[in-house]
């Protein structure tokens, strides 16, 4: 038992060794907590206007300054985190579930099913993300749900590809054959024996694409295709600030920093997961 234990440190241990990824996790958790407890964190309401305090630079009262309607930008950023983060998390979760499942099915069953699924994914993938999103939002109308749908649709083929490759590898392992010899159903083999073994690969991509999705949402909002004003989102705030970029640069800078922080934290998590994954892959390779 001792001979192998040294070389096979689990995911958690390797992850632990990477300090930066913990910074990422803590950062992301803080952002999530802020979003969840927005009413308690925000000193003002997100749409409370005040004629007295229009376009104020950052101060102790208004940490991020105020906008053209005198709304507290810090409170808006806090509430904006709700939209931005939930768009990122929900669309990636949906994209991962649907796309991942399709990829696993394609890899596991192969042949016809593989061809049909992967060809359709290729078609989806051949449209640039933003174009697909614009078309969907244009067809369905701008709303939070439709933004999520648009991003999910662009993520599905990516997750399908990511899930298919490791499925092909895991499918060839002897334990899958052992499962079949024991008369397990395909559903059981896929859920309990394939998915857990490809999950890490998928989670790495999920964390990176959550960051991507947040940026895409911001892009939609910036183009005016996202959630309707006055509901605050980070992307929307940047757009509003853009009109006054020279008089009130803080209006764009702070939401921009929020996006940067979220993206950075997710990338750190993704890198940590990837590092944790690599030595394990190497070990598998060593075993031949």
């Amino acid at each position: 038992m001792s001979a192998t234990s040294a070389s096979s440190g689990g995911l958690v241990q390797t992850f632990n060794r990477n300090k930066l990824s913990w910074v990422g996790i803590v950062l992301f958790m803080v952002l999530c907590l802020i979003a969840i407890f927005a009413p308690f964190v925000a000193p003002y309401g997100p749409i409370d206007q005040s004629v007295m305090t229009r376009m104020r630079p950052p101060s102790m009262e208004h940490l991020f300054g105020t906008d053209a309607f005198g709304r507290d930008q810090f409170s808006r950023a806090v509430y904006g985190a709700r939209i931005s983060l939930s768009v990122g998390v929900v669309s990636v979760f949906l994209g991962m579930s649907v796309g991942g499942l399709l990829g696993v099915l394609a890899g596991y069953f192969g042949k016809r099913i593989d061809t049909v699924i992967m060809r359709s994914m290729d078609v989806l993938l051949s449209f640039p993300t933003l174009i697909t999103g614009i078309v969907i939002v244009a067809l369905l109308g701008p709303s939070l749900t439709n933004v999520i749908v648009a991003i999910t649709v662009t993520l599905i083929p990516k997750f399908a590809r990511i899930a298919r490759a490791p499925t092909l590898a895991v499918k060839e392992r002897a334990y899958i054959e052992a499962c079949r010899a024991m008369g397990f159903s395909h559903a059981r083999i896929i859920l309990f024996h394939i998915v857990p073994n490809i999950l890490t690969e998928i989670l790495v991509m999920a964390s990176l694409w959550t960051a991507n999705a947040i940026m895409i949402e911001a892009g939609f909002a910036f183009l005016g295709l996202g959630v309707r004003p006055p509901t605050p989102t980070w992307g929307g705030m940047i757009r509003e600030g853009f009109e006054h970029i020279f008089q009130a640069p803080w209006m764009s800078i702070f939401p921009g920093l929020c996006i940067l922080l979220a993206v950075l934290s997710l990338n750190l998590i993704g890198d940590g997961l990837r590092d944790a994954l690599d030595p394990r892959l190497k070990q598998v390779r060593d075993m031949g």
Partner: protein
Amino acid sequence: MNVLDVDGLKKFFHTRVGAFGGKPVTVRAVDGVSFHIETGEAFGLVGESGCGKSTVGRAVLHLIPPDAGRVALHGQDLMQLDPAELRALRPSMQMIFQDPYSSLNPKQKVGAALAEPIRVHGRGSGPEAERIVADLLQEVGLPAEAANRYPHEFSGGQRQRIAIARALTLDPDLIIADEAVSALDVSIQAQILKLLSEIMQRRGLSFLFISHDLGVVRVFCKRLAVMYLGRIVESGPVGPVFDTPLHPYTQILRAASPIPDPSARTELVRLSGEIPSASNPPPGCHFHPRCPFATDLCRTVTPKTTEPVTGRHVACHLHDPAQADAMRATKPLAAKELYFP
């Protein structure tokens, strides 16, 4: 009654070789294989790499659908069953693999891996399954705590014990062991062989024991079949087949198998050349390009299986009385640089 009857089993693979799709080739991995396994018997299957041993094992289990032939378990033809019936029959046949590293799910604790088939087939649940698992671990010589660990915490030999325990969970009648001890060190190999013999005795199990190691087959099996390029060339009781091999290929295989006795040291084979591939087997007797007795007849006519000694079968013109005259009449192929005992 026999546990297993295999009759004219065939499995061809259609693949492509070369870049950009390449040209299609048919690999005749198993090309008409017949044998039977008696109850409580270990039956060996030996041969060089790529001769189709594993494919026979997989086709018998219907993990890959055979192209032709009959596979009958306890006299019941598996080819006639629908998928549901086949699944219900699966517990009676289990498999042990060569590589103890890839044959266990790395994300599943040993206890869960052993309990899963018991639960899935409704053979017990909760505490009852746990009790069965504890008994199994004890049977294969592992501590009960092993149930709470992951496979990577075990050495190769211990993992092979876990794989054996898993094969036993459903109380099978037949176990197909594909090179089950080949990846292990001599002392660990001996430990596992001992364990398998004990289990076979105690449970009255039958084995299809696939191996390329004649020594291992000799200690573990009662009868065996020797395969060459998808066909069985000789079969019979282990002792006589190894001591007085009839087929020229068995003779060469036997001569090339090292014996741990320097006083029995013989001249080593000096022949060159490659094993022909199953995708392009030579015509006639597949073995003729390497056979020291080959004649023109061997080059064109596939030898029939005969029974020159009771209980021993061989597919070679030399042992076919019907071909005796023809063999004498045709000229031997050019002498080959080849060692022969």
